[in-house]
């Protein structure tokens, strides 16, 4: 067996929401390790805190005070400043949402490129990468279309292309098939599987056992912990 390099790990991760005067603990002391090149599925009931976990991993939200740590490679994501966090979101992780979340005014190509634009000047390198990704996802004839002109599956493929534009080491997907019918969902999973085969590390959240079977490994989130 080869040496497994840990790309991402959490230790004693805690996240509590405050609703009025009531504290609602969602994650309590969650430990998770994701190796380089691994595809991990996080399973759990609705409301178990899967999205919350993914937001923390993606640097979109911060854990509680003294709420544990998230290590990306050897860097503590939970402790960095705003600038580094923006960079982390932009280059180190790619995010795919259940509801696609494309920018409605932009075309398919522009949506794909937006992450590279946020990063800085658009290089021909990035443009080539965008075309490459869109071709890979069979969208190369829809470049000038706007999101509302696409089907759900197509939209999700654009969203995946967008998340990969800066070649992030880690792809986070929150119920990527949750809003799609069975067949379309399968095609999205094929895409992820394809990416995984090329070495992409993926953390995918789902409540569907069948979907989780496509991953290397599934973990169950219950009661704020990995069971």
């Amino acid at each position, binding site marked *: 067996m080869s040496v497994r390099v840990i790309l991402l790990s959490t230790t004693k991760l805690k996240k509590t929401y405050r609703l009025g005067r009531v504290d609602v603990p969602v994650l309590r002391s969650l430990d998770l390790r994701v190796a380089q090149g691994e595809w991990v599925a996080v399973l759990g009931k609705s409301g178990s805190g899967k999205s919350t976990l993914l937001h923390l991993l993606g640097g979109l939200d911060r854990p509680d005070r003294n709420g544990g740590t998230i290590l990306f490679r050897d860097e503590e994501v939970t402790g960095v400043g705003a600038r580094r966090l923006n960079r982390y979101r932009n280059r180190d992780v790619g995010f795919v949402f259940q509801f696609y979340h494309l920018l409605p*005014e932009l075309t398919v190509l522009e949506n794909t490129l937006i992450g590279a634009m946020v990063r800085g000047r658009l290089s021909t390198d990035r443009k080539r990468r965008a075309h490459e990704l869109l071709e890979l996802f069979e969208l190369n004839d829809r470049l000038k279309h706007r999101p509302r002109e696409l089907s759900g599956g197509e939209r999700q493929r654009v969203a995946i292309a967008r998340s990969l534009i800066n070649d992030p080491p880690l792809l986070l997907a929150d119920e990527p098939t949750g809003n799609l019918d069975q067949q379309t969902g399968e095609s999205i999973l094929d895409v992820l599987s394809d990416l995984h085969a090329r070495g992409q590390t993926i953390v995918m959240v789902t409540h569907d056992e069948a979907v989780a079977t496509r991953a290397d490994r599934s973990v169950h989130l219950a009661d704020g912990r990995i069971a």
Partner: protein
Amino acid sequence: MYASLLTRRYLTRRVMPLLASMAVMLCTAMIIIIWSVMTGWLGLVTDAGRTFLGDVSIYPPQTQGMPHYETLCDELAALPEIEAAAPQLETFGLLSFPTGQLQPVQVVGIDPVRYHAVTGYADALFWVPPDPPMDAQMRSLVRSAEQLLEDAQSSAYAVFGREGTDAQRTADLWRSQVVEREREAAEKFTQAARRADELGMTHDKFDVVEMFRDRADAAERAGRLAERIDLRDPPDWAMFEKLDDAIEEALRIDYRVGLTEATRRAGESLSLRIGDERVPAMVMGIEVSRYNKLQRDGSYIPRLPILGETVTLGILPVDKQGGTMTPDRRQIRVANEFRSQVYEADTRRVFVPLAWLQKLMHFHEANRSAADDTHPEAVWTDGVPRVFDLPEIVATDPARITTILVKAAPGTQADVLRDLVAAHYARFAQTHDEMPNPAFVHVMTWRQQVGPLISAIQTQRTLMLTMFIFISFTAVFLVFAIFWSIVSEKVKDIGILRAIGASRAGVAWIFLRYGLTIGVIGSIAGAILATIFVRNINELHEFVGQATGMYIWTAEVYQFARIPGEVDVVEACAVMAGGILFSIFGALLPAVKAASLDPVQALRFE
């Protein structure tokens, strides 16, 4: 990079930003229009206020007046910084019209030609003789006469003083090409004069018949000179020059054109021809007599004819000590009226010949007797007055005036000129008798004199602008409201952008840029709109007036028939910058709101 893309897309895909741009446009246009019109008005008033003022004026104490003014004026006019200087005598009087109407007036005695040189007075004269309408016959007569004279002139140059040619041939050429042509030209001018006489083109101040007679005379004189000139060697160049002058005169006498006409009009403005003599006459402000009715377009139509009318001017002469003397009154005819667009002048001022007013005011040159309290005693014997004890004349009191108006030479600043004139006066007063003490003599620039009026309008302009800038805050609120709603609508987009790594500043920049773009578009459109509006403001005003019967700008109120206004580039740029700033200001808070959104919350936003 992404900010510009998103700004562009947000702009082109919505109606809202269009509305915001329009609000900015209207506010920008409004302020530029107000500013332009107010500034234009200020310019008109300033120019008008200058009408009867010198660039610099010298005011001695009024009762005392100033002697030796002719010398002083000549000295001043000789300075390189000064173009012209003119004396003026001023007093108050009571004017009574044949209608029984009485009008208090400011009486100003002037030497019209010099006064015109300083103030351009002739341009204010209202009733101008129309360009003489020549009929076809006259026109062709004048044209052929002029052609003949020009041909004669060039032939004269070609033939005269030619050496080594046959003397007989030269004489023949001279006769046919110079002398004959000049005679013929004289004949044509005489015919033109006759025709003008037939048509009754004899105006009191512009006599066409006389003009053509003068030209005929000059041509005739040229013919006589040409006939007498010796064509043999050595050439008589002095004589030839006289001939050339005569031809020039015949060609150029034309009172209709150029400066000569204005000066001539000025010179003749204060006299009327009655029979064979010219008598002193008055020029009064267009509103003094109330004989004329002001039209809405700024023109006047006479209700009663005022020109040629005899009025009576009464004044109260004041002696040097300020004591009043016996009131005096004189009849005078009205020769013309003037319009300066300065309310005070147009309603109150009358011009009369300087010498005429000096007499009436006892400011003329007078002999002084030895003892002031001895009066000549006239005793009537057999109906004949016999005078005893005629006092000895010991001195002559020079004529006096109350103001000297000075016009600066081009390039001389009024302030500089004022100091120069004051200094010159101080020296002059030392070397001449009875000059008022320089300490009591005011030397003022025109700006100092019209200052109060101008500053009133300036204040009004500032007030208007301030008001409208406040009104323009509505644009800020509009931009604010529109942006607030756009940001609210775009919460999810903001969440997405933040999720893929956009910084808070980057997100804020999208909306600031958006505001900037709306400001730039709105301001430029506003400036264009304002320019079009101001350029056509009078036509628009007329159009709205005709449609609604409501005229905002009337000559009665504003003194000027046309609405003034010229868009000043610097002012327009300032307003545009303001518009842009306001738009950014309006976008500021929404941008801050967008930046402060938490990405997760933004993504969860429904």
